[in-house]
């Protein structure tokens, strides 16, 4: 690892902040918490993909007076979940648009009785014709959303694509598809809500974005901001799956709490969580690419379609990130991209690590290997000839001002994986063996932080204070759900303030206590919030020097003594900073042009895959990942992010299939939705290059999403290398390999009688 300036705490692998509690089993997740007089809530859900609700019947075998029941009519404010467009009802009112849509809520002190009551509610429907696929949605024969089924579309054009086709030496087309993917956090979605007229709504929950849930609750209850409080509890995995959905379940539990006059817990079991909550958007991406005789890109024409499900939720921003990652890490003078997010009658698709990028990176990186095969050039060489460099512009005409070291990352990955020797060796061995091995590559970037003007709109506020007990507290709404927020932000504060790591703690992630530092998404926390904590810490030192005689060089004791001095004078020791966009970063929302992201993480990944031509199984045998994501603040946590993202990416490629029947997930159990286990994940080798980024916390850029973008194309490229057959669709299961590789024996047509 190349190492920039040495620090005391930043760049070292201190123990995870909340690690001991997690290891002792004393960390309190939502289902570990009880409130006095607490009832249990459950949801009556739609059994049909689309229709009018004709009637709701309550079985007489149940004594309904024991239960609290909430319908859309009980909502005091707006019957909408506030995301980008307010189209998703909190509870269905007259019509349902997907299976498992929430219609009615029930609560009871006994959690077993509430389940029985759900089964005793009988909903009848007048069915409407549903739409289940991108193709059915885009042909608009049945319109299920808006005027044309389209949630959002983007179009961008750089140069003049149509002028190129006539004189290009090579033109290569391809179509690539990706399936839905379930987050499969091991802790399901869950919340506890309380309501009183005096204090309003309080929600504790497993969630990523306390202020997203806060915003939704304000609208559903028509309350002022100070009457809604959202507190994140220890969160057992999220991956984007607890970005938008908690706004739904929080609203439901809070409505029940208001109706029943009791705290209400709603914790989904696995079957409900899988069937009813968000997944990664399925996609179809078409490429048409022109190249010159030297294999240099002349034009890329890219058409992207995503399946957004029944309501718009985050589909527009997922589509934007998908669009902006679709040309890959290459420079091309002429680029046209059209993209659409389409409505279907399935559970709304939502945020999932990578947020649209894994879909379009799969397409472009699979396509690069198809181009290489088609024009007879080495896939590595094709990439090398087209890599984007500092000083060149992207498809949105963003001038790349920071150094880009793709060649170095590529070189590192090739050497560490012994790529060329292995390919030669496998080519020799494969012919005589039923097991065919191959090597595949993917090169890609991932934009750090919100897309375009997003960070300016968020306008995050974050900071630190020092308590009377002598602890520095980090004040953020940025949450910990395994990725290391607590640890990394406290490292940054401790480093600047000259105190020990243990002197710094996190303030509770409670909207009543911490400022709004924005959502914990988009690989933004270390870069954007880390930078705010760095600035707030520096600002506190300036305050202490000006107002409390802190010397230029100081000890830990002198720091805390100065804090006490300031407290006596000012009553509190607090320093907050607001987001400032890096200079020269401008994004034009209207023209969809400019600096799409302030910074990019870069990576080259290589997969070694074995295809068993007897069992038709494909297995990843070893995996290498080289990446540059700015300064690495915590090597073990950062490496853990890469490894975990790769394991999810392997699942995305080879294991994880969401089977929909009538628009409803049919395999909504861990028994039949299969993720890679300890025996499936191969040895993963992670290599860092560090180029500190001037506008990130201690030079950090985003890490969390980057590793998930590459495994699927690298693995399918390796399969092509192994057996010479292209697969352009994921997940790729043994039955898919079988269907294409096995040649069915010819049978004579039976004579018709």
């Amino acid at each position, binding site marked *: 690892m190349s190492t920039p300036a040495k620090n005391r705490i930043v760049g070292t*692998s201190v*123990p*995870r902040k*909340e*690690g*001991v*509690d*997690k*290891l*002792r*089993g*004393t*960390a*309190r*997740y939502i*289902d*570990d918490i009880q409130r006095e007089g607490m009832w249990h809530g459950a949801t009556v859900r739609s059994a049909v993909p689309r229709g009018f609700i004709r009637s709701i019947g309550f079985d007489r075998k149940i004594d309904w007076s024991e239960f609290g029941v909430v319908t859309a009519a009980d909502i005091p404010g707006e019957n909408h979940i506030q995301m980008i467009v307010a189209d998703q009802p909190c509870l269905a009112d007259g019509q349902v648009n997907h299976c498992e849509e929430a219609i009615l809520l029930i609560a009871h002190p006994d959690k077993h009785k509430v389940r029985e009551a759900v089964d005793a509610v009988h909903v009848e429907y007048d069915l409407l014709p549903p739409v289940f696929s991108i193709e059915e949605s885009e042909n608009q024969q049945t319109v299920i959303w808006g005027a044309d089924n389209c949630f959002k579309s983007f179009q961008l054009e750089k140069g003049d694509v149509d002028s190129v086709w006539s004189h290009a030496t090579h033109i290569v087309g391809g179509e690539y598809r990706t399936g839905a993917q379930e*987050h*499969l*956090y*091991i*802790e*399901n979605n869950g919340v506890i809500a309380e309501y009183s007229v005096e204090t309003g709504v309080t929600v504790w929950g497993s969630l990523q974005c306390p202020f997203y849930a806060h915003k939704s609750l304000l609208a559903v209850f028509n309350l002022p901001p100070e009457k809604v409080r959202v507190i994140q509890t*220890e*969160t*057992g*995995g*999220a*991956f984007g799956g607890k970005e938008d959905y908690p706004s739904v379940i929080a609203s439901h539990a809070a409505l029940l709490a208001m109706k029943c006059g009791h705290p209400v817990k709603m914790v989904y*079991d*696995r079957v409900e969580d899988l069937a009813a909550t968000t997944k990664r958007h399925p996609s179809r991406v078409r490429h048409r690419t022109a190249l010159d005789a030297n294999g240099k890109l002349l034009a890329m024409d890219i058409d992207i379609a995503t399946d957004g499900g029944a309501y718009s939720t985050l589909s527009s921003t997922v589509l934007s990130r998908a669009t902006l990652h679709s040309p890959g890490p290459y420079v091309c003078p002429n680029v046209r991209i059209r993209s659409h997010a389409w409505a279907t009658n399935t559970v709304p698709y939502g945020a999932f690590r990578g947020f649209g990028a894994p879909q379009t990176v799969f397409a472009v990186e699979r396509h690069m290997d198809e181009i290489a095969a088609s024009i007879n050039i080495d896939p590595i060489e094709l990439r090398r000839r087209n890599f984007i460099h500092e000083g060149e512009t992207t498809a949105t005409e963003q001038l790349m001002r920071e150094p880009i070291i793709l060649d170095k990352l590529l070189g590192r990955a090739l050497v560490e994986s012994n790529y060329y020797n292995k390919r030669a060796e496998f080519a020799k061995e494969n012919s005589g063996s039923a097991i065919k091995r191959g090597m595949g590559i993917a090169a890609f970037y991932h934009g750090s932080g919100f897309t375009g003007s997003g960070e300016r709109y968020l306008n995050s506020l974050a900071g630190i204070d020092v308590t009377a007990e002598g602890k520095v507290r980090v004040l953020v709404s940025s949450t910990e*759900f*395994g*990725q*290391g927020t607590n640890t990394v932000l406290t490292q940054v504060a401790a480093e600047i303030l000259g105190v020990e790591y243990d002197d710094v703690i996190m303030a509770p992630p409670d909207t009543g206590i911490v400022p709004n530092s924005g959502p914990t998404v988009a690989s933004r926390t270390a870069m954007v919030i880390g930078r705010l904590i760095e600035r707030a810490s520096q600002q506190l030192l300036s305050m202490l020097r000006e107002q409390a005689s802190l010397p230029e060089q100081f000890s830990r004791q002198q720091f805390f003594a100065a804090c006490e001095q300031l407290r006596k004078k000012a009553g509190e020791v607090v320093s907050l900073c607001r987001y400032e966009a890096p200079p020269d970063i401008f994004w034009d929302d209207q023209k969809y042009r400019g600096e799409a992201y302030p910074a990019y993480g870069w990576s080259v990944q290589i997969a070694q895959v074995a295809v068993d031509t007897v069992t038709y199984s494909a297995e990843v045998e070893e995996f290498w990942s080289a990446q540059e994501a700015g300064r690495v603040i915590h090597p*073990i*946590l950062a*490496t*853990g992010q890469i*490894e*975990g*993202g*790769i*394991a*999810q990416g392997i699942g995305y490629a080879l294991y994880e299939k969401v089977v929909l029947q009538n628009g409803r997930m049919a395999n909504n*159990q*861990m*028994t039949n939705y299969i*993720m890679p*286990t*300890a*025996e499936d*994940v191969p*040895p*993963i080798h992670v290599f860092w290059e560090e180029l500190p980024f001037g506008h990130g916390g201690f030079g950090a850029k985003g890490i969390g999403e980057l590793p998930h973008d590459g495994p699927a194309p690298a693995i399918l490229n390796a399969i092509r290398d192994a057996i010479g057959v292209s697969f352009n669709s994921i997940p790729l299961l043994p039955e898919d390999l079988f269907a294409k590789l096995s040649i069915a024996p010819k049978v004579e047509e039976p004579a018709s009688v």
Partner: protein
Amino acid sequence: MSAATPIQLNVNGANLTVTVQPMKRLLDVLREDLHLTGTKEGCGEGECGSCSVRMNGDLVNSCLVPVLQAASTNIETVEGLARDGILHPLQQAFLQCGGAQCGICTPGMLMAAKHLLAYNPHPTMAEIREGLAGNLCRCTGFMRIFESVLSAARSTTQETHAR
């Protein structure tokens, strides 16, 4: 539904009697009746291993065990790992090697790792993979967990694991 019945258990070394429905899941008895919420539910069908505990030295999914079946057995849960405020070598190794991320699979993973090392104090990588194959982790990609188990195996004696 059958009536609540007194059932004796030894949990983390303490003899206890719980009066519950005999078909109540051991998981729920631990979490609801004994307030040992370290043991987690992930799937409720024995697939994820988050609810792993040891029962008379066997590794079980406590979501699949009716408490009746656990009567008069010794149950070990994550809460019993640390002694006198000192972390078990496995807990220490997970902390140092980054074996826990979100932490929700961690209690079950620790119990599976303890079980593995109890029978095989110096496992190979293949044996670790097999030993932990019943416990799903969605965060780490397992690499840091394998390293944690290897590290614990290196740093401790057989006697420590047997405790």
